[in-house]
């Protein structure tokens, strides 16, 4: 017998990648339905115990409720329905969006540091190497990590986040964006795109490590829920 508000059904649906919004709505509707049937049964003279047992029987067992959702492909989350787009196309804009955020944050940090008397010139000069480190390694690692989490939460096949990690590592390691600040006597910003040296190995190793870690974590969660 399921427990209101259908906790085990909710977690089973989320585990196989049904959209969280869909699950929320479905469980809310089932819960409302359940309460209505219980109220009707109570007013018909049933005991509270009989009223709840009959309400669950009328709604259908959890297996039936579960199957009635999973046979509708539209119920699944976007990452499950369109795994190719999610894991092979979207990581690239996600990577560059992260890089742009890092650049903006670095510029802001540099400006603030240069105007604040608390920070010496040594601190200001630190912003640039930290920003480079964040752009070259922080951004790809963050995006790869987020894709691992997404795959885990949406119940996607393990191959997808691995492909994402490889793609992110390849793009991050091989394509380099350069932007130079304005020089006083020239007075313009110079920007360009180029092929970088193949510095992908460390970037590749860390997402792979993150991925293995998440797989182990996933198995641990599944073993705990089975127990």
């Amino acid at each position, binding site marked *: 017998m399921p427990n209101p508000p259908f906790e085990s059904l909710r977690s089973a649906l989320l585990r196989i990648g049904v959209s969280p919004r*869909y699950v929320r*709505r*479905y469980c*809310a*509707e*089932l*819960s*409302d*339905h359940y*309460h*209505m*049937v219980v109220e009707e*049964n109570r007013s*018909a003279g049933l005991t509270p115990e009989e009223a709840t047992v*009959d309400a669950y*029987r*009328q*709604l*259908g*067992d959890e297996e*039936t*409720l579960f199957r*009635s*959702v999973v*046979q*509708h492909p*539209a*119920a699944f989350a976007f990452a499950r329905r369109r795994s190719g787009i999610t894991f092979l196309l979207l990581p690239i804009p996600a990577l560059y969006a992260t890089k742009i955020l890092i650049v903006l944050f670095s510029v802001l940090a540099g400006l603030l540091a240069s105007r604040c008397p608390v920070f010496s010139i040594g601190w200001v000069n630190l912003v640039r190497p930290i920003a480079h480190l964040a752009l070259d390694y922080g951004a790809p690692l963050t995006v790869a990590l987020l894709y691992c989490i997404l795959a885990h939460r949406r119940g996607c096949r393990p191959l997808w986040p691995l492909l994402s990690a490889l793609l992110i590592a390849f793009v991050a390691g091989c394509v380099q964006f350069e932007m130079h600040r304005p020089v006083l006597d020239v007075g313009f910003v110079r920007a360009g795109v180029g092929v970088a040296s193949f510095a992908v190995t460390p970037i590749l190793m860390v997402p792979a490590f993150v991925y293995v870690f998440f797989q182990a974590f996933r198995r641990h969660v599944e073993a705990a829920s089975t127990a």
Partner: protein
Amino acid sequence: MSTPRTNPSFMNGVPELLVLRHLSQEKMYGYELIRAIRRSTGDVISLGEGVIYPTLHELEREGALASRTVKVEGRPRVYYRITAKGRRRLESVRTDWSRITAAVAGVLRGTDHAQPAL
């Protein structure tokens, strides 16, 4: 209070037809709809009641139904109503259903025009 579940192999497309038909008369929420279906079919058709919701969601996604959520006694309650697209779909499903039931009825009566092709 208990009614036997309807044989699922006979039920393909029936929930959709019944849902559209009932919602073409007035807007309803899931529980109300189930009760209306039971009443109008004389308890002959009884599904696992939770099964109706994915059908409603699918019809809504396809634009045949529209929904509105209202808070009742602290619980969200979703009211469904049929759209113009839903009415067109109801007509189409109703026509298909009439054709199929007439053909099957003909076969069961053993009339000449509905002899199965050998």
